[in-house]
């Protein structure tokens, strides 16, 4: 036959094959190849604030970190436990308000209010979401979406906790460097910690629950209890973000329950790569960057990133991190059949 059919094939790079398993440490090049992504990620994250000129941009980085936390929380629940949580705003709101109230009403310093808000907020959020756990996933999604909207309305209507005006004058961090270098290592800790957790036995059970919960039940495991623990973890992460935010601006208000905190993390996860845990962090950074650049457009940026989110979800693209992984580990070429 004269016709030559060509097709693209994708192969592992030579260096990837050479660094399989124990052979990773067989050469300096191999070690560099394997460790480069992780090192780049860690160093990059730690160095970014130093490379940026103005304090405004540093504040933006901190905001990006807050969203990164929420994105990690979402990705963890969605990909490893199979729970789609649309309640990021619920966590930030509860966490923020608890921390703010403790600080404002009792004068407790933020080193105490933030941890209390994290754990206490997580307890409260988990309790509210508990009844949804045995039900089909869509229920959890709907209810978690609703709670922040409802809580905000209730606070507004009853004019409690500061009502529409919120609670001003809260304690803030000593200076910007504390703000930055408290949260950045935490992000790294959380990213790698979660990654470790999902590969431990506990994480195996969670992933099994996502895969086939009937079999897990038949294996003498109380699914609701495990899901609750997972939700607690995710809620704690979210509540921490809310508390941190409260003391970042020294103010809590209804905006802590804004839908933004629910949607943005999802967008960040989809952009960065669902299930990679690193992806959501990077996605959060990227999206916050774009969001800032589009600041003049006002509500239009919400339009932009919800359309982007819709588009990405509908087209079911992989995300940035999987794409980069493919490029890094594999190469493509044309071959003839």
């Amino acid at each position, binding site marked *: 036959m004269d016709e030559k059919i060509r097709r693209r094939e994708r192969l592992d790079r030579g260096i990837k094959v050479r660094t399989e398993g124990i052979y990773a440490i067989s050469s300096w090049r191999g070690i560099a190849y394997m460790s480069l992504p992780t090192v780049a990620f860690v160093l990059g994250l730690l160095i970014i604030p130093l490379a940026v000129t103005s304090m405004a941009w540093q504040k933006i980085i901190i905001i990006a970190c807050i969203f990164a936390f929420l994105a990690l929380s979402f990705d963890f629940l969605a990909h490893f436990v199979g729970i789609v949580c*649309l309640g990021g705003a619920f966590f930030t709101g509860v966490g923020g308000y608890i921390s703010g109230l403790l600080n404002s009403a009792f004068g407790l310093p933020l080193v105490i209010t933030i941890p209390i808000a994290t754990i206490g907020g997580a307890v409260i959020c988990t309790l509210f979401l508990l*009844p949804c756990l045995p039900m*089909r996933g869509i229920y959890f999604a*709907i209810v978690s979406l609703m709670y922040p909207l409802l809580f905000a*309305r209730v606070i507004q209507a009853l004019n409690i906790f500061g009502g529409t005006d919120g609670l001003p004058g809260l304690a803030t961090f000593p200076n910007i460097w504390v703000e930055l270098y408290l949260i950045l290592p935490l992000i790294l800790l959380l990213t790698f910690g979660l990654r470790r957790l999902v590969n431990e036995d506990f994480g195996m059970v969670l992933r099994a629950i996502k895969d086939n919960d009937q079999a897990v039940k038949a294996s003498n495991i109380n699914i609701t209890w495990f899901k609750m623990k997972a939700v607690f973890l995710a809620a704690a992460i979210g509540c921490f973000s809310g508390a941190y935010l409260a003391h970042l601006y020294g103010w809590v208000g209804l905006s802590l329950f804004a839908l933004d905190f629910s949607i943005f993390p*999802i967008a960040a996860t*989809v952009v960065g790569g669902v299930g990679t845990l690193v992806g959501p962090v990077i996605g959060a950074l990227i999206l916050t960057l774009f969001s800032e650049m589009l600041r003049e457009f*006002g509500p239009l940026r919400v339009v932009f990133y*919800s359309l982007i989110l819709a588009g990405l979800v509908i087209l*079911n693209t992989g995300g940035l991190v999987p794409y980069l992984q493919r490029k890094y580990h594999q190469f493509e070429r044309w071959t003839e059949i």
Partner: protein
Amino acid sequence: MNIFIFGLVNSVILALIASGFALVYGVSRLANFAHGALYILVGFATWLFLNRLGINYIGSIFLSIVIVSIIGGAIYRFFLIRVKGMPASEIIASLSIGIAIMELFRWRGFIGEAYMLPPFVTGSVSIAGVMIDWQRLIIIGIGLAMMLSLWLFTHHTKVGLSLRAIAQDKRASMMSGIDPDRTAVIGLAMGSALAGVAAVVILPLGSITVETGYMVLTDAIAVCIIGGLGSWMGVLAGAFLLGFSQILATAFIGPHWQMVVVLLFIILTLILKPSGLLGRQKELEERV
């Protein structure tokens, strides 16, 4: 008596708002988070036709409902159909589209008191000693008419029956030759139309704001959770329960307690009967 009448009005309003959402969920198991957006889309479209294009009121209403129904169906046909079956993606996709639409209006400056739709009939009338405006009575009338025609439609027309069939048992319907995708498109179009009808009768009571969109979504979901997703009677039951409770709370405790009532009822429902009053949501346990 006051309470009865206003409770009735409130309940019918909630039922109208929730019916579009419930229809779409019942037919295609899709939680359409763009419901609120479609609601205000009809509102703004009607306003535009009325005020910018000078079309008469009835014409504007008709036109905007038809157009938004087509838009609703198109949203399913071109976008949501691709994430069919993945509940997470469905929710995220419909929510994003909804938010995009609503925020688009906000960006274009559709804010403020200026955007109002005139009531069908102005003035009020006294019924059993209670002063009530005509528009609210019309709402009750249209609401009941809507329920009735929906019932007739889904029980006596071919398209309506196919909607019910798909809702009850997708596979069996497919074997009878009913196309689930086409039905879903029709379902979403009808859901949008219902949202539109609700919008045009209810919006004249106040003004059209972007916040209304979010509130409508929350209310619709609340009614469906309390009444039970997937059950028609549930929607009515939930609407009436919520509607009357809100009015009772307003009358006896305070006007701001409406939202608290909603939250309380949702929590109560989740604790006592998570699948809703008349819900047919099977608990995970029963899926074998």
